[in-house]
């Protein structure tokens, strides 16, 4: 998989007091406004994860995934990971799980272009 196709981040999956935290990479060569990034689905061990209460974290800030389409002036720095926070979900540290992520982007200078990205990885919970 090319770097520009990679969407599951190097930091992997972490289980914290508030829930699961999944690292994501931006599949493009440059930073993009979050309004053009669609986190379409997450499945863990084949089970779809409910995303309605999910949060997105980047560069020390976080916001509800539900309002991401409005984030036109908040940019995902392409060299950094963002994190998807799934409140209330827990997994035992050290356990291994198949994580499937779908993350689509619409580069804002190319009218009508939408790039679909899906990646599956087996991750050990940190």
């Amino acid at each position, binding site marked *: 998989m090319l770097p520009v196709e990679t969407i599951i981040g190097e930091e992997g999956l972490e289980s914290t007091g508030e829930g699961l935290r999944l690292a994501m990479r931006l599949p493009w060569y440059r930073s993009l406004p979050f309004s053009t990034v669609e986190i379409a689905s997450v499945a863990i061990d084949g089970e779809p994860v409910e995303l309605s209460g999910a949060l997105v974290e980047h560069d020390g800030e976080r916001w509800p995934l539900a309002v991401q389409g409005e984030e036109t002036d908040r940019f995902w720095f392409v060299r950094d990971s963002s994190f998807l926070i799934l409140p209330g979900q827990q997994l035992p540290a050290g356990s291994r799980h198949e994580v499937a992520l779908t993350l689509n982007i619409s580069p*804002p200078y190319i009218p009508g272009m939408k790039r679909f990205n899906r990646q599956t990885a087996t991750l050990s919970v940190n």
Partner: protein
Amino acid sequence: MTNESAPQIGVTLYSFTNEWLTRQFDLPGLMREVAKRGMGPNIEIIGFQSFRDFPDVSDDTAARFKDIVAETGLKPTSLAINSDRFMKPGQQPIDDATLVEYHKRQLRSAAKLGFPIARSQFALPAHLLPDLAPYAEDLGIVMGVEVHAPMCWGHPAVQAYAEMYDKLGSPALGWIPDFSGTASRIPESMLDAARRAGAQESLIDLLKEIWPEPGMSHEKAGKLRERALAAGHAPEHIQAASLAFFILANNDPKSWAHMVDRTVHIHGKFYGVDDEGREEAIDYETILPLFRDGGFKGTLVSEWEGHAYDMRDAFEQVRRHQAMCRRIFAEA
């Protein structure tokens, strides 16, 4: 020694996208590597690739960048800015006033970082140039629109810009040719990447048949998809083969002659330079003399885009490309 009356050579850090995304370098580290390998001094940087606080770089970011410039001896030549007009997918583009201000923010950052040229895009409509030209002039920056595949001279958007350039007569506006629009063939390395992704030879043959046909790129991509699906090829193989329609086009290489006078900077797009010093897809022997003999005195930056489909060593590709360009520029 460089000959100031001849075209200059440099590199865009975009060539090292794979090394950047895999965090092999941070910005100071990448600049030091480019300087150490003698690939400068002229460099282009994409604002939205390399600066965390773009589009509004802070005083601290600018000061740290200038420190690295001073340390390495590199010369900031062009800052690629983006004409992000479609901020909400599927909705109306942002309004003109917001788009103009978005460009002004990036032009201010370019000035703050010490770049004399800002690369813009055709997503900025020509009718907004009168709002930006005086602003760029005041900042001492030249704004060049990138003429990238599928566009070239004769395309309606290019003609609209040319007419506005004539009307305004501003020294702050010009062209940045990107040779992706005048490829003579699909690079073999790109076809090999499609093969590795699983595309069968019959699909590659179909691609090679449809790609040079006249018509719009997206229409040709649609035609390939339709015929390939009917022939039983898998959608993921068709997607791998379709990259050629979206990043390169086969317009006439000699058409650049119309644009030399207003060319302020060049993207030396390339995919792979072989052991004999020839680029796989773009006929540099035809294109570069147009600029050399036409009196172009700016900088050509090596822009390797093979990273869009494979993991070859970008530094080796840039080394070969710069040697090729120097050879052709010297053949006056």
